[in-house]
């Protein structure tokens, strides 16, 4: 097992990626700007200012669309890029199995992305803290804020894993990018439209089954990592993480996140392992 050296090497490599740094800087500035501009000041919301900001503004408009994009930028060229440039020859002349390469890269690049997300939330955190000190914001809940960054990082790691999977399966960087962007478009932009169509079209099939339209719809929501993370993070911000009415949905969402982190790299490895390089 040589996962650790590959993970470390890829972490060192990925944290120096200009594309990732640029996206994270953009992300950080946007979150900070949101914090300043839309800080909730209405009556009765003071107690939950941090939670409202994160869930309804930062989460919906910044984390959901941007963090998966950073994940794809970090992941899509992990293996296909090395294959195209020739550094994969250097890598595989060392005693690494191809499985170590794929999973080492998921770990190393996932860690790089997590660090980037935490860094990206640092500036907005300072801004919110300053706003609270000056009295412009009623309350800044540090615990909620830090906890939320964990969910954002999880979302990014899932997309790193998906795009590393494409990267392992594809023979060129371009194909890996097309596959990863396709998944992004499906999960981030089109999911509700596509699943809505599916539910309408499949109603004839679903009706005789012992499940309701509603249950299938809930499952489809949990199956998408972006809505899964939204579900879990809003449960967390509402103090209902792995508890309350949505417990079953939350468990489904957690299972699906684990699935999306492991299955795409495995499928990619299956192709990569048989390939002539």
């Amino acid at each position: 097992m040589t996962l650790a050296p590959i993970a470390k090497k890829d972490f060192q490599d990925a944290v120096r990626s200009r594309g990732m740094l640029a996206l994270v800087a953009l992300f950080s500035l946007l979150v900070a700007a949101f914090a300043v501009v839309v800080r909730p000041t209405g009556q009765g919301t003071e107690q939950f200012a941090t939670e409202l900001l994160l869930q309804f503004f930062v989460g919906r408009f910044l984390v959901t669309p941007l963090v998966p994009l950073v994940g794809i930028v970090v992941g899509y060229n992990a293996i296909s890029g090395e294959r195209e440039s020739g550094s994969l020859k250097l890598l595989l002349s060392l005693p690494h199995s191809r499985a170590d390469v794929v999973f080492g890269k998921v770990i190393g690049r996932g860690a790089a992305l997590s660090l980037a997300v935490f860094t990206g939330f640092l500036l907005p955190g300072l801004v919110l803290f300053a706003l609270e000190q000056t009295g412009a914001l009623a309350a800044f809940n540090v615990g909620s804020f830090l906890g939320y960054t964990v969910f954002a990082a999880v979302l990014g790691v899932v997309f790193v894993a998906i795009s590393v999977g494409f990267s392992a399966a594809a023979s060129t960087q371009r194909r890996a990018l097309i596959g990863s962007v396709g998944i992004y478009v499906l999960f981030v932009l089109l999911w509700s439209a596509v699943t809505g169509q599916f539910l309408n079209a499949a109603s004839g099939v679903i009706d005789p089954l012992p499940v309701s339209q509603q249950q299938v719809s809930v499952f489809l929501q949990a199956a998408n990592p972006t809505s899964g993370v939204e579900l879990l993070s809003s449960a967390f911000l509402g103090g209902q993480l792995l508890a309350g009415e949505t417990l079953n949905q939350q468990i489904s969402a957690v299972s699906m996140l684990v699935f999306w982190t492991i299955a795409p790299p495995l499928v990619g490895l299956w192709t990569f392992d048989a390939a002539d390089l």
Partner: protein
Amino acid sequence: MTAIELRGVTKEFADVTAVRGLDLTVESGEVYGFLGPNGAGKSTTIDMVLDLVRPTEGTVRVLGQDATADGVAIRQRTGVLPDGFAVYDRLTGRQHVAFAVRSKDAADDPDALLDRVGLLDDADRTAGGYSKGMRQRLALAMALAGDPDLLILDEPSSGLDPAGAKEMREIVRAEADRGATVFFSSHLLEQVEAVCDRVGILRDGELVAEDSVEGLREAVGGEETLEIAVGDDAEAVDEGTAAVRALDGVSRVDRDGDALVVSCADDAKTRVIAALEDAGVAVADFHTREASLEDLFLAYTEGETPAPSADDASEDGDADADTAGDEDGEDNDAISDDADTEEVSR
């Protein structure tokens, strides 16, 4: 104990058969030169040894283990300088070597390895800014990590200046002295001639010759070529030419301006000079030329069959050597296009 053993190995790609029916044995502890023009299948063969490419037919065993099933265990004991590789542009030289050391679970000091290949002063620079020669040295340092039992060097001197190529040879010798098996591919014959115990020549995916450098030379014919500077006494030279042609052991005589080019057996040299002097030719100067490996290489890789005598090969050697180098588009300057020349002045 064999270090590398290929039995009946064929590799077919979608559009081309790169290697066909190849049998190759590299004994433990030897320095084996793997020669052939570009496109002969050298890299595909090495890729199969490293399990980057799987054979269509046949078996590949390395250090006694199956190349595909035991690839990781094999590479644990193998150091590789690949051909056409790239470095990690954003990582420093030291990070590269440290990565190789960690990957092999070795105890080497990265700086010591970098020092050995002459890269210590640039250890903190990112490899993206390295020249081709420096990248080559970097990959060599990575290959040397963990004192490998087998070193596989694919075109090791590409991108190196003559001094770098010499250092590369010295490292190859030092590794061989340590007991490592060295398998290296090249189209640079000077490299092979200087360090290899045995040479195999690959052509169109098949091994067309395998022997020691001396053995190959014998096989192509033990003849030497004499270049004799003669005077401008045309009559005496004509007479002398006829006399030399009549000698035993002389296979060919050509006029080349003021010089006679004589292909003859090794022991006929003095008789050739004597016959010329008897005919009244003033022999000003002469050189003998042994068939160089360059000539041998051309005989094996370009001729229809290996030439039975060295005549054509040695005469055309210089001109063709440049062509052979150009096939690769680089490293021409590193090719020795001088035949072994020994000068005898009188």
